[in-house]
């Protein structure tokens, strides 16, 4: 690693800052707000967990950072996504392409379908390498084998010549990771990288990602609905609810002292650490659908602390402690009140 990169790592300017991002889907004449002002901050070299129930907008958020939302029906309705001072949403497509697969690597949830079945694993990595770094195809193939070795595939030389259907789900996800890491990204976005895998493979892939983050120094945005994964692998956590961020905090602080009633409910619903957020359906009520316009706090219909102010005005995300932000009028909340 070069000296200057280490230097940058010690500055306080975050690598990625999403500010008040709003995303709409225009579906058959209706407008659905999938994201209603999402903000989050990711520091260099750190892992940020993005958690929330199914449908709360985690994938939309991560695809937006790559600007890969299908448009139409998707539409960026407001906010900024700032990578090292540059707003990605106003960036020309050309420059964006340099970032995709270059500075930003992405791993998807579906290892079985995320690789192209008609090219070998090696070829798919080589393509990314040659497009970004102009390596000769020979050099790129050597590098691809190196990468497959790095992600822990046995006999990487042979695997490079295998087609995706010849590998298992876990192996394919390793190939995806190798692909995402091909051009030494500063930011790795992993959208539920282990959800589709069975439990032992999940643990292996997570270990691999932790290990690779340490070796490459890349910052990781890890989307998951598994709080156990968050506790084990993330430095910071962002909790999303119905298209908005309700709380962001360092992992330790969040688990020790959750401040948003939703997060508190989550923790209460999680007697053991290896439970997923979807358990939250144990909180009474249900998530308001994205086409319903809500004036106040979106959690109000399920919140035991809701009052008139909650129902009439949207609570802003505000700092209540070091790096700890909450979108709730009533925070900070004494533990006993919920």
């Amino acid at each position, binding site marked *: 690693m070069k000296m200057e990169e280490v230097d940058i790592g010690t500055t306080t300017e975050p690598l990625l800052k999403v500010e008040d991002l709003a995303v709409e889907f225009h579906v058959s004449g209706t407008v659905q707000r999938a994201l209603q002002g999402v903000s989050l901050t990711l520091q260099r070299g750190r892992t940020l967990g993005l958690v929330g129930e199914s449908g709360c907008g985690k994938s939309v958020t991560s695809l937006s950072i790559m600007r890969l939302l299908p448009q139409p029906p998707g539409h960026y309705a407001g906010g900024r996504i700032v990578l090292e001072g540059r707003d990605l949403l106003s960036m020309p497509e050309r420059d964006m392409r340099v970032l995709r*697969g270059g500075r930003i690597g992405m791993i*998807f949830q579906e290892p079985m379908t995320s690789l192209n079945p008609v090219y070998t694993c090696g070829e798919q990595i080589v393509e990314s390498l040659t497009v970004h770094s102009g390596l000769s195809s020979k050099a790129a193939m050597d590098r691809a084998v190196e990468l497959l070795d790095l992600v822990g595939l046995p006999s990487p030389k042979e695997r490079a010549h295998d087609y995706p259907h010849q590998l298992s789900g876990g192996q394919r996800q390793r190939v995806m990771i190798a692909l995402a890491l091909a051009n030494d990204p500063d930011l790795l976005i992993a959208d539920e990288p282990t959800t589709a895998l069975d439990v032992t493979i999940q643990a292996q892939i997570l270990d691999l990602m932790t290990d690779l983050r340490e070796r490459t120094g890349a910052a990781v945005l890890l989307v998951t609905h598994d709080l156990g994964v968050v506790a084990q692998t993330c430095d910071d956590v962002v909790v999303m609810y119905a298209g908005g961020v309700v709380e962001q905090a360092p992992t330790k602080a969040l688990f020790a002292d959750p401040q948003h009633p939703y997060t508190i409910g989550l923790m209460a619903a999680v007697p053991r650490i290896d439970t997923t957020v979807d358990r939250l359906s144990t909180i009474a009520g249900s998530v308001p659908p994205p086409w319903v316009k809500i004036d106040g706090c979106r959690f109000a219909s399920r919140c035991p602390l809701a009052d008139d102010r909650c129902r009439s005005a949207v609570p802003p995300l505000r700092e209540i402690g070091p790096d700890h932000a909450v979108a709730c009028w009533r925070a900070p909340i004494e533990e006993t009140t919920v």
Partner: protein
Amino acid sequence: MMTLVLNRLIISVPVLFGVLLLGFGLLILVPGDPAIVMAGPMATPEVVAAIRTEMGLDEPVLTQFFRYLGRMAEGDLGRSLISNKTVISELGAAIGPTTELMVACLIWSIPLGIALGTLAAVWRGSITDRAIMAFSVAGVSLPIFFICLMLIHFVGVQWRLLPFIGRGGPLWTIDGLRHIALPALSLGLIFIGPVARMTRSSVLEVLRLDHVRTARAKGLSETRVILRHGLRNALIPVVTLVGLQAGYLLGGAVVTESIFSYPGIGRLAVGAILSSDFPLAQGAILILALAFILINLIVDVLYALLDPRVQTS
């Protein structure tokens, strides 16, 4: 790959048998007596009877069939009743021109159909898309003889741009090219439509798949995403379609060759049937069936080449 070809050939055997049966049935079922045809209009009944005995036509059907199979196995397809040349030599002379016609038709219509289908998919819903699709539907729904006649009328007769009768020589000569242009154009026009439509729907389907999102996430240009990760995968079903259309193509060749007096298998078959030249008709049908089997074999090989999941699993 070898096993694939072998499997295919084995499957072809019953098909071939069916074709032979059909060819034989033609002789039995179709009105018209080959003996009378052979004897000529002036022959006396005695002469006709003699010929019938000589040809084995008065023996039981089953005996005739096995004798017929035996001759086929030896490659003896008999002689034309009209020209008295061997059927093999008649077919041999016609097979080259028909192959040339197929090549001349497919070499432009398949790439163009694929290109148009891809453009329509990429610009779906646009004017271009609608124009391409309207053109495809027209190509499919207009009868081929109509297309041929229009081309003859305008390009051949009114504007005198190209010849429209017969064959001018081998494909690599100027005259050969000029003569084959209109038949190849007519035949290709009916083929573009299905190929373009299949390509369009296949590309649209592939572009929705997860691996295309991965390709975009690699930072590839949109053109590269569409060609290498969309069209490349979409070709797999298109190839299958081309195989399925082979019969359609051969049928079109029969009409086209007849209209343009092009000396291929198709015209030979029509001529033979019209003149009750049964051995020749049988031979022509057999060749067309073989062509059908061969085209499908090629398609299967192409399919396996395009889709690694077929070869390695």
